[in-house]
Structures are given as C-alpha cells and as structure tokens.
C-alpha cells in the first residue's frame, strides 16, 4: 500500500512501530508537492527544511506517542505557526512572521504531527473560490480549469491531491465544507466553541470555527480528537467533557431520525446534487434510519443575515491592520493618510467591500436597522434549528447548490455569495456540520452532501457521516 493511501491512524501507528519512518512519510509528501503543486498552487509556503528536521526528530524519539505521530498536516495561512509566515492570503501581511503558535497548531505538534506548510486561501477567508488570494488562485485538482472552492481552497485541494494527509481550514460561513465538496474530500465544521480560535486570524469572530479537511470521515474524527477542547486562551471555547470521536464510527444508525428540509424545494439546486441527495436519503433509510421532514422557515434569510453579521465583525477585526506595528507600510504626510494608504494598498477589493459593508451596518443611524436586525434574525434561525432538532438528531442537505464553477465565472459578489447558501445557516446557529462526498456530477466532480447535528453532538454527526460514506 502506498503511503498516500494510508489513513491517519495507519501512518501514526506504523511510524510509532518503526515500520516506516516519519522521514519517509515527509519525503513522500514533499515529493508529491514538488510534482503536483506547481499546477495546483495549494501552498503559499512549504516548510521543507523544517519538515525534514521535525521528521528526523520524531524518528529519534525513544518514546513515540501521539495521535498524529509523523502525520503531515497542511495549515491554512490564516493560522499562526511560530516562525512561519501568516499572511491570511493578504498583501497587507506579506512577509509577516508569526511569533507564536495557534492553539490548534500547538495541539497538532503535541500529538506528533508535522506542519508541512501554509495553504492558500481567499484573502482573510473572504470568498468561496480562493480567487481572492492576493498571491495566486489555487486550482481544483479534479479539474484545474475549475476553482477549488474557498476560502480554505488551499487545504482542500492539498488533501484532495494527496499533498498532505490532512489539512486545517477555517469555516465562517462554509469555508471548510464548500471547498471540501468542490474538491471531493471530507470537511468538518465543529460546533462553535468546540475548537479554540486562539491564533486564527479573525474574520467573523462569532462564526469562525477551525475544522479539518481529510480524505475520510475517520481521519476527520481523529483530527477533531486532536484539536477539540476548552482553551483558557479563548473565552468562547466551551467547557465540555473530552470524548473520543472515533468511538461512534461504525455504530449502526438504525432508528436514528434524520431530518430533510422542506424548504430545499424553494432553492435552485443543480439536478445532479438533488439526485445525490435523494440517493443519500435512500441509503440512510436502507441503513435503518428514519427520514423525517423538518422545516426551517427562516432559511432564505440566512444569507443577508450573514452578510451583515460577518462583515460587521470583520470591519473591527481588520482594523488592527493599520501598518503601524507590522504588515504593509503605506505612505502619507500624516497618520490619517498613512492609514488610508496602507489599508487601501494592502487589502483586495472583496475585503474592502466587506469592511465597508460592516462599517456601514454598524454606523450611527443604521446600527439598529442592519446589525441589530440581523442579530435578531440570527436568533430566529437558531430557533428554527432548535425546533427541528426536537424531532431529529441530524439533518441532511446539500453542501452547495452547484458543483464547482470555472475561474472568473462568478461575476458579481452576490452570485459568489450564493454558493454558501446551505452552509451559512448552520454557521449562524453555531451547529456542527460535515460535508461528505457522495455521488458525482456529469463532469466527474464529487457532490458534497452536508450533515448537521445538534450543538456539541459531533459524535452523532460523525456516526451518520461514516455510515453514509461507507454504505
């Protein structure tokens, strides 16, 4: 069996048993990157020397332990890895070197993982195609004329193309699940509060969740085992019992109630996706699950709600990029000109657009009509899910309304925003969700089917996802 086909568990246990060396694994993936990445452009930075050094250190350890021992992990470039760049895909942070490790990165290191490099993304995670990267677009490994989705397009395509065993992405409105669907891999957004955000460059603080991109649901569960947990550095992490998320994998789903959403009919969904969705329903039923229709009446309000809440938070989160302490330094006769020049040169159009929307939504005279209104609609959306989850233990719906599109195809921002129409409601409610590749479209792309579970019930989420994946 080739290294690339092994699961995370396989690699870790073989390296720990000295059946293969961490160095061999690392060299294999670096080789893959050399071969394939010039076309795909998944990585912004590959830490070759660091990877080899780290692999050798692991091999020299007498006491080899850790869930990710010797496993290479790609990190989206909006997370801090000490000593490496952290650009968030923006010119304003070109050359910025992180002085500390994000909590998730620390945890990966603690479990023996190897940070292989930093992956491309839409600038500050704002986008759904990775075209908004200030550096270059990433291509979809399944067909390089198409976008890999975004904003975690780099990590998704790296995993899809076998350039890394697993990757971390961040998901604010679908940025892990949507590229996972586009690249045909598994992408999970855990419950908001399950994984520490410390060290993740913030976009929408009340929505941002770090999640794994992997080849399989099992790998996803292993990754969640590593990154989950209360963090004293993040006030918004929840104090919940530690659990082993691989425990629920393979448990039968007989008797579980799975919700299908009545309002799906109101949306324009590509026929092959509807087809895959129906196939999924029948698979679940054959496995003994009960399919029940649930209603999310506020579903169609999720998108405008999100595009008020996330930009509002972003407008403040991105205020620190002012050129004073780090990042691109503009010019100007006085501080005001300096700020404006630094930021206008440093940010791309989409980021500027969202900063302006957010500033507008928070400004005097508009705050109640936009920000507060959206926060209230968000409560209504949460309420929809609450009542749905009083009837079912998981919900199934498409990850995206379409399979991948071509570069430059989405002309207006609103068109682009529509690709997150099914992932955004889940983010607004803070629920855990996973995208699993099921079926194919006529171009050969996989279709991503999304499962959602109750708050902090990733166990059920993974259990159903695993059953569907392995049907």
């Amino acid at each position, binding site marked *: 069996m080739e290294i690339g086909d092994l699961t995370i568990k396989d690699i870790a246990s073989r390296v720990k048993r000295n059946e293969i060396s961490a160095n061999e694994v690392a060299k294999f993936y670096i080789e893959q990157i050399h071969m394939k990445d010039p076309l795909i452009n998944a990585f912004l930075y590959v830490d070759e020397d660091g990877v080899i050094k780290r692999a050798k250190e692991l091999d020299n350890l007498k006491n080899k332990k850790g869930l990710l021992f010797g496993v290479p992990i790609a990190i989206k470039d*909006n*997370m*801090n890895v000490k000593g490496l760049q*952290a650009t*968030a895909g923006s010119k304003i*942070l070109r050359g*910025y070197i*992180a*002085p*500390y490790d*994000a909590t998730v990165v620390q945890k990966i290191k603690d479990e023996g993982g190897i940070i292989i490099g930093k992956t491309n993304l839409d600038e500050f995670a704002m986008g759904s195609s990775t075209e908004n990267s200030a550096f270059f677009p990433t291509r979809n490994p399944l067909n390089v004329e198409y976008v890999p989705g975004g904003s975690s397009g780099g990590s998704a395509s790296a995993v899809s193309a076998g350039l890394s065993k697993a990757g971390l992405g961040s998901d604010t409105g679908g940025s892990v699940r949507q590229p996972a669907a586009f690249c045909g891999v598994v992408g999970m957004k855990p419950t908001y509060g399950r994984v520490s*955000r*410390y*060290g*993740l*460059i*913030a976009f*929408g*603080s*009340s929505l941002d969740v770090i999640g794994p991109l992997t080849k399989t649901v099992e790998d996803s569960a292993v990754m969640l085992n590593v990154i989950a947990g209360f963090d*004293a*550095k*993040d*006030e*918004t992490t929840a104090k919940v019992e530690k659990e082993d998320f691989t425990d629920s994998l393979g448990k039968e789903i007989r008797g579980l109630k799975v919700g299908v959403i009545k309002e799906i009919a109101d949306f324009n969904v590509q026929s092959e996706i509807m087809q895959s969705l129906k196939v999924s329903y029948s698979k679940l039923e054959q496995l003994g699950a009960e399919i029940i229709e649930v209603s999310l009446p506020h579903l169609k309000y999720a998108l405008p709600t999100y595009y008020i809440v996330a930009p*509002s*938070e972003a*407008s*403040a989160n*991105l*205020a*620190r*990029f*002012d050129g*004073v*302490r*780090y990042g691109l330094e503009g010019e100007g006769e006085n*501080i*005001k000109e300096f*700020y404006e020049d630094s930021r206008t040169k440093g940010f791309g159009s989409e980021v500027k657009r969202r900063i302006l929307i957010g*500033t507008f939504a*928070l*400004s*005097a005279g508009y*705050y109640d009509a936009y*920000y507060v209104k959206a926060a209230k609609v968000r409560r209504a959306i949460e309420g929809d899910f609450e009542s749905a989850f009083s009837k079912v233990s998981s919900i199934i719906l498409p990850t995206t309304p379409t399979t991948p599109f071509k570069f430059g195809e989405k002309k207006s921002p609103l068109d682009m925003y529509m690709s997150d129409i099914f992932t955004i409601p889940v983010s607004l409610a803070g629920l855990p969700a996973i995208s699993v590749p099921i079926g194919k479209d006529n171009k050969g792309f996989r279709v991503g089917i999304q499962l959602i579970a109750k708050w902090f019930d990733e166990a059920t989420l993974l259990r159903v996802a695993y059953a569907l994946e392995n049907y």
Partner: protein
Amino acid sequence: MYKPTIGLEIHVQLSTKSKIFCGCSTEFAQEPNTQVCPVCIGLPGVLPVLNEKVVEYGTKLAVALNMTINKYSNFYRKNYFYPDLPKGYQITQYSIPLGSEGFLEIHGNIGNQKVRILRGHIEEDSGKSMHSGDITESEFSFIDFNRSGIPLMEIVTYPDMETPDQAYEFLVLLRSIVRYLGVSSGDMEKGAMRCDVNVSVSKDNTMGTKVEIKNLNSFKSVKKALEYEIARQIEVLEKGERIVQETRHFDEHDGTTKPMRTKEELNDYRYFPEPDIPPLSISDEYVASIKREIPELPHKKEERLISEFGISKDYSRSISYSQKLAEYFEDVVSFAGHPKEVSNFLMVNVVAFMNDKGVEIDEVNFDKHKFKELLDLIDQKVISGNIAKEVIDESLVSGKSPKQIVEEKGLTQITDEDAIKNAVLEAINENPTPLNQYLGGKKQVYGFFVGVVMKKTKNKANPDLLNKILMEELNKLSS
C-alpha cells in the same frame, strides 16, 4: 444669578498584577515595549481573556460607591483608529456596565452634598504616544504599548456638583476610598487616576451648554480649570454670546482652558457587542462576599471619630482620609486613651514632622508606647501641655523616649506650691503699673501676669496651680 453644573468622568487604574486581557505585567515606568505580548499589542489571531481580579476590584469599587451590581454586564468594541490603540478598537463596557446608579456623599467646608453616580464600567487602557516637540510640528510620534491593556474602571457622575471645591472634594474622597479598598494607588501623577470634567453654566433655570475639559493632571488642576472655565463661561454669557459645545484642553502653564484643535472629527464609534467575550455574570453571593471585605470607608470613619471620640471635624477628616494615619490614631487611642490630645499631637506635631521629612506614619519612630508615656507625664502633672509639644518634637527627631527627654532637659513641671507662690509674688511686686490697672478693674491684665510667671518658671509651672495661686494673691490685694 449664574449656576454652574459640574459632572466628572474619572478613570481609575485598577492595581492588578497583570493586564486586563493578558498576562503582561502592569508595573509602572518600565522600558518601552517590554511589557507587551501578542494580545496587548494586537497581533493577528489573538483573543482577550478577562482577568478575575479586575472583576473583583471593579465590583469592590462599585459596591463602595453604592452602585447596583448588574447580574449580567457585557463588553463592547469601541471602534476608532489611533496609533496607540493596537486593535483599532477598545474593549469597554457599554450598554450594561458592571455597576449602575450609585452615590457618594461628600462633606467638606461647604456642607454635605450627595453626588449621584451614573455608572462604573471596566475597560482597557491604550498605549502611550509621545511627540518630540509640538504635536503639530514634529514629523513623527512614538508609541509605547506597555500601558496598553492596563485595567481601568471609569466612574461617571451625574452633574450634581456646583462648585470647583465640591469637585475637588469628590476626587479627594474617591482617591481615599480606592486606597482604602486597595483597588488602586489613586496616584494622579502616575496616571492611576485621570479625570475629565463636564461643566456648564446656567442662568434662571435655563439649561447651560456643556463643555468638556481634558488634560487635567492633578486635583489642583481640576479645581483651577473649573474656576477658570466657569468664569469664562459667565463672561461669554454676560456679553450676550453663546457657549460653544466643545472639548477644551487645560493649559497647566497659564491656568486657562483652550479649545482643542477640531478637524471635522468623525465621532461614530460603532459600538457593538464584543463577540470574543461572553457576558459577565455576577451572583448575589459574590456581591455579598465582596461587601463583607469592604472596610469602614473614610467618610464614615470621619463621622465616627467625631461622635466616638469628640475630636474636631478638621482633624477627624485629615486622619480618616489616610488609612495609615487612621489606623495609627485608633491604635494609640485604644492603648493610651485621650483621643482629643492624641489627635492634637498627631496633627500638629507628628504630621508636621512627616511633611517636613517626607515620610509616612509607619516610618515615624513614635509608637503607641511613647505616646502613652507622654500622655502619662501630662496626667501626672510632670509636664504641661506646652512642654509636651517640645518633648514630642524632640522625640520625633532623636527617637529618645519622652521620659528620657524630660529628665535630661530638666523639664519636670513645678508642682511645689511655695515655689510657684514665690514666682507669683515676684511677678506682682515687679510690675506695679499692670497691677494698678488690674486693681482698677482691667481684668484682662490677668493674662500678663500668667505670662510673667511662666517665664520665670521656664514654662514649667503647673498651669492649674499657677492659676489658683495667682488668683488668690490678686484677690488678697483687691479686697
């Protein structure tokens, strides 16, 4: 008649060891940018974590100021760009502060006055910007972020004060309270207490226009700025002109207030709930436990010392406003009694010595045993009150005990009636003119004879005996 209306906004630095949202040290006057970390310097990816001591100190202060502690309070982001504000927003409490609706009763020379407090909220401080030379002319400014993230509690009063003296009083009392509570050093010079004032002047019950004054670096500046500003506003109104609603800057050098340079300032802070910090909930039990920790506060102590010991109002206030002095006073009195005498010696002799040497009461070498010795010497009529002052002054300097001083200097009081009588007779015989005046009915000449006798006895005559004998002898002559 013009009536000024004054409100205060005071920032109190809470004296925690670490900053409000990170573990950086709060120590004062360190090398620039050595007490900073990714959090307080606003690096990408960091998150704030609230310091429990900030909540404790803030609650303590709010309770001491009679505020209601809100069961839930929340944090907001206040957005504006400034180089010393690393995140581009300040984390502060906004819609629901830690404490609301309190009051503080000030009493000084101007009588009692209840000053209502609108709110008390916790927030982070910004860094410090420095300019070489004139702020408008220097090409660059320089920033030190050591202060960024220092915890503050902002106290906002209602505009319940009418005179600069009241504002001064309020601040002096507040400083004393924060020191009693141990929640702040209260040192305005070190920026641990900062104050902005709002002042308007109204005539005939019409609302005045509010002017804010900033850059007040001492309590005296507050008073001076208010005095100047009130006079200025009255002058403007007298000329039939209007007061401009604005922020003015106090110039310490010439004691005037000047309008701050106003560009078209955009004042739209876009406050919104801080998503990184869930609401702060405070239980009744917590508030109750904080209440139990609050000591008797200076203004209460002031009242008690008067009613319990009958000491003068002025002395009671001076003693009470300093926790150390008050502790010393009560300690001495419980050991040696004589509260009036103790307050007198303490304020006249000991405090004068402290001020002269620039030392605190706990550095003064005059403990309760020496105090008792001194008071016993008076009680036993070994020395008079006047001599006692001499003795305590000497003791403060040399550290010798009162007894030793009295012995070494031969200051023992004369209680021998014959000796005093001799001196009295001498005084009478040597001063025939005053004697005739006295006998002629000019009774105030009596004091002259007392003075002469004291001089003859080198102040050592027992005053009671002196009076008795002098009166007897004079009565003999007038009958």
